[in-house]
């Protein structure tokens, strides 16, 4: 493995994380809600791929998309809407509860049947093979991830900048109250954002399940946690900044993971931060440093974000 290979793999992971970041960022933009249960939308889509095994890849993916969109809309209607005027802490803990509920429901599938946790998925399994380019071994799914990321982000950029609903969504993100006063329909905009975030959850689920074809009740959980950290580091007030933050945390995770694993010590008694097992610590220390230097976000232009003085 060379540095170039590590770089390409890192871009591949960054692309998936960027997709998830857009899904989280869109909902945050219009609703100011951090949806911790976003990972369970990914999980639901992944389980749909399990259940539709043998129906053909296209149908399986379409059903996964439909299920994620439906679950996302239900989540909005059942939880976000009743809590729209409560404190952010309450909403955040409510999304924890939703996340836990869905994870534990999925876990019942295994405890009820008394079998080990996990189902395997075969959708688009061929993409897991590696393409040899010179000395590089790159899995096709890495290219697909980068391509899907680029196409999805481009489509959303067009939607936001060239369509009426996109304009309304941007207006709602800038100032929801004023947007409503000038005739933006709140529920239409919110449903559009929530539905698109569901589509993105399904797309990330497809890519994640090709990369590691085992679906469990915690599928999507750690990705969501990392992306949430990434979008705050990038800057939540702007969708572009949040997306870049998501990409960056995926990229850093993959690239530093390779560097630490190859350069670092392997001893269990080694001083922390010197071996591959301490990758999360290294990432978290970097996150803290960035937050201390740029609390509004790394990619938010200074002076543009609303200033929090304390």
């Amino acid at each position, binding site marked *: 493995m060379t540095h170039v290979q590590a770089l390409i793999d890192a871009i591949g992971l960054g692309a998936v994380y960027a997709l998830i970041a857009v899904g989280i960022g869109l909902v945050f933009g219009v609703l100011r809600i*951090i949806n911790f249960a976003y990972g369970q939308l990914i999980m639901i889509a992944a389980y749909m791929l399990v259940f539709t095994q043998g129906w053909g890849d296209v149908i399986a993916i379409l059903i996964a998309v439909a299920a994620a969109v439906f679950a996302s809309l239900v989540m909005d209607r059942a*939880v976000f809407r*009743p*809590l729209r005027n*409560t*404190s*952010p*802490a*309450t909403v*955040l*803990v*409510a999304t*924890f*509860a*939703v996340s*836990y*509920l869905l994870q*534990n*429901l999925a*876990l*019942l599938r295994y*405890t*009820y049947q*008394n079998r080990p946790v996990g189902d395997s998925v075969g959708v688009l399994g061929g993409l897991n093979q590696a393409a040899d380019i010179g000395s590089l071994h790159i899995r096709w799914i890495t290219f697909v991830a980068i391509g899907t990321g680029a196409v999805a982000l481009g489509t959303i950029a067009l939607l936001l900048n060239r369509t009426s609903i996109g304009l309304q969504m941007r207006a709602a993100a800038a100032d929801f109250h004023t947007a409503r006063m000038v005739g933006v329909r709140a529920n239409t905009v919110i449903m559009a954002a929530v539905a698109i975030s569901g589509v993105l959850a399904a797309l990330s689920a497809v890519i994640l399940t090709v990369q590691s074809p085992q679906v469990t009740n915690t599928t999507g959980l750690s990705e969501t946690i990392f992306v*949430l*950290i990434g979008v*705050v*580091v990038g800057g*939540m007030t702007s969708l572009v900044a949040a997306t870049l933050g998501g990409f960056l945390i995926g990229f850093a995770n993959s690239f530093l993971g390779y560097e630490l694993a190859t350069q670092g010590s392997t001893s*269990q*008694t080694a001083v*922390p931060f010197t*071996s591959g*097992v*301490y990758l*999360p*610590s290294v990432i*978290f*220390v970097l*996150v*803290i440093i960035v*937050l*201390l230097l740029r*609390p*509004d976000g790394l990619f938010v232009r200074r002076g543009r974000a609303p200033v*929090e*003085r*304390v």
Partner: protein
Amino acid sequence: MRRTVDTLAPLLGPALVVVLFAVIASQTVNAADDVKFRTAIVSVAIVVALYVFIGNSGVLSFGQISFVAVGGFAAGLMTVPSDVKPGVLPDLFPLLRDHSISNAWSLVLAAALGGVFALVVGVPLMRLSGLAAGIATFAVLGITYNILTYWTRIGPGATTLTLIPVTTDYVQATIGALAVIAIAFAYQRSRWGRQLRATREDPAAAQAAGIDVHRQRLGAFVLSGALSGFAGGLLVHLPPGSITTNQVYLDLTFLTLAMLVVGGVHSLWGAVVGALGVSLVNILLQNGENGIDVFGWNITLPQGSSLVGVSIVMLAVLLLRPGGLTGGREFGLPRSLRGRQAGPEPPAPAPEAGV
């Protein structure tokens, strides 16, 4: 006299509930459920420790469980008898490997380490607020978990730390929880506690009145860290006398935060009610998995359904009462029992500004 009772009601109410809970549980509960009820009392200590910072400052922290973890591992590690330690944990630093201390000192050590760790972390981090503070404190939790899981010079690493003396009986759990409640009450009535609560309601106005927001938040963070460490010490001495890093990571963070929010973030009473209420629901549903008699019907819930039930109860409380069960109010005597001097009901606290 009546005034004193009114003033102390927010302390005496929760304390009495915890004592009653402990007395009833210790007299009636069978051996199998015993640990669950003792754990419930320890979770009161943890949730009140969380409340000292989150409730008073209005800043959401995901990092307090790292202080529980540090306190717990320190108290556990140092009470494992020193004659068996070199055999089971050969990689430890000699200072940790060749010494052990008593149960009481281990709790002091846990509190001290929790406080010192919170101070080191808090000095830079307390400058942050809102989402940035939430993520930065989560990063602290992640680092603590990661290092505790892999660095075998300071602990058991990825294996289970066992052979910890089981000293948290009902008496120790209850006294511990009462101590944490009393300190939390004393703090919130103190000059510093009131200053911090002022910054929660309106940071700009509090600053204009000369309150140093950073210093007040740091003070509460360190106190909360010390209490969390202490609660970790209580936790580690529960049966079966063992601990892993996964026990003091994400699940405990979410569970204790949920307890606090379900009870009501802004009051000590809320922290106690939330911790005991959620624990009771959890115990009830766990027993349901083993079969329970309800009015002559034997109901057996499928394995794993207790977690589903707890999540549903939490969600239902949040949807029906977004301010928590107590709505952020302290425990108070009914109006008819109060002294004549008592003023009108204070207005309910406004929803906090930031996360």
